[in-house]
């Protein structure tokens, strides 16, 4: 029973979403289902928050490797929540919201939460994302080696696309005769890059997307028909 009800709900809502796509009168029911997901996901955030606290408190109390990071995590978590909920530094904004000092939005410019976002969160995540450049360089140095025919093809394609993506591609037109008046300069590597992207890449992408779409259909059917319940912990 503990698994039958979730499977039944998943099947019912899944079928509803499919049928509602083709049947306009069922759209409100589909919207109800969509609203319910938002509600459940929001409640799950509380569960996540509680689990985060428990997990890190346990790490600190057990003095596990990296427990100092857990202390920083918990401290940041509680400070951010307090600043957001108490609306530190928020002032009323529009005519409808003048009754209380905390009437304005919590993300209001100049507020404590905004400050945390602007001067802590934003630079930290930007820095993390920027690290990608270093990892890409390291992976390219290691992975693009001409070990066999397939690797050579990959390597040559990568080099062409890399050059074709920057203005350095214009170097390849230096040895061509100058074009006639009003005719744009022909850039061989730009042409090859576009050809690779529009023909091979697009064709490959479409093929993978078709495969994925069919995979999604089959997996969805397995879930809707209750054939595969492993994501819920399997059969009772």
């Amino acid at each position: 029973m503990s698994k039958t009800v979730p499977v039944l709900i998943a099947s019912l809502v899944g079928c509803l979403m499919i049928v509602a796509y083709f049947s306009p009168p069922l759209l409100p029911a589909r919207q109800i289902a969509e609203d319910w997901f938002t509600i459940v996901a929001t409640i799950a955030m509380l569960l996540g928050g509680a689990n985060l606290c428990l997990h890190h408190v346990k790490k600190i109390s057990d003095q596990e490797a990296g427990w100092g990071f857990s202390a920083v995590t918990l401290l940041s978590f509680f400070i951010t929540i307090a600043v957001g909920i108490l609306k530190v530094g928020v002032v009323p904004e529009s005519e409808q919201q003048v009754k209380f000092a905390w009437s304005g939005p919590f993300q209001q410019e100049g507020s404590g939460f905004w400050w945390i976002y602007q001067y802590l969160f934003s630079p930290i995540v930007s820095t993390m994302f920027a690290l990608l450049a270093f990892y890409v360089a390291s992976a390219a140095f290691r992975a693009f080696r001409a070990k066999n025919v397939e690797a050579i093809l990959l390597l040559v394609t990568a080099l062409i696309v890399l050059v074709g993506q920057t203005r350095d591609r214009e170097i390849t037109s230096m040895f061509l005769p100058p074009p006639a008046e009003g005719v744009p300069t022909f850039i061989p590597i730009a042409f090859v890059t576009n050809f690779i992207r529009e023909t091979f890449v697009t064709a490959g992408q479409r093929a993978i997307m078709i495969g994925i779409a069919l995979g999604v259909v089959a997996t969805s059917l397995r879930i809707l028909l209750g054939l595969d319940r492993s994501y819920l912990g399997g059969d009772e």
Partner: protein
Amino acid sequence: MTSRLLDKLNMLDRRWIFLAMAMAVLAPILLQIGSDETPSPPTIKLFDEIERLPEGSRILMAMDFDPTSAAELYPMALAFTRHCGVRRHKLFFVTIWPTGKPMIESTIKGVIQADFGSGDRPYVYGVDYVNLGYLAGDAVAISQMSSDIRKARPQDARGTNLDQLPIMTGVTSVKDMALIVNASAGFPGGKEWVQYAATPQNIPIAVGCTGVQSTQLFPYYPDQLLGLVTGIRGAIEYETMLAAKYPNPYADRSKRPAFLRGGAQRWAHRLMIGLIVLGNGIHLANRYRRTLHP
């Protein structure tokens, strides 16, 4: 001697690569070395469409990115907004990324209020533009917006009822927009706007995306996507066209953030090519050494 160098290169610590990359990015930024671009057809198409639309056309500006990807997408968001402002279109800002709201506010502050907030016909909030804020629910939010905006979001980001805003008169859903312009950093983003709003409702849509996403979105162009602006390169292309059409003030370097980032990108690309060549040199030298001393 050569053998020892090869051994050293074989054992090269990847932190040297990291250092080289840091130099390649840092030097052009510090020395203010920029890079220009020749506009490509997918970027030109979006530019022409915004030019073609009559003054006062409704444009939905979906800013689905966060500070993480702002380095790549914020310059193009500024360029799109500047162009729409010059053409006096009505702008509806929205985001389906919880961390996207400050990006909208930053764009409004940096473009609408700075460039179009004063003068003879200043842009007025609620009349010429509105910030609908963050819509929770990812693709579901897009789907809701395409059926009824008020159901998805009854108030704007300031908490004002949408019915009290003049700009919302006659707007019931995304169907009432002349164009959707989306700056997309991933999921949910351009693909979801195409699948859940633009294609089912038959609304023209153009997407500005990160370089990585471009391969995923190219299959939709030109049938389901009117235009596609990819990464910093696309932003430079758009800035180039904007500067050519409206040189005052958009030819100024201070109004061209993508141009300045292009230099760093160009040098990083050069380093990558160099590293790939070096990696293969090492690989071939190793193979040669193995044939000499099997």
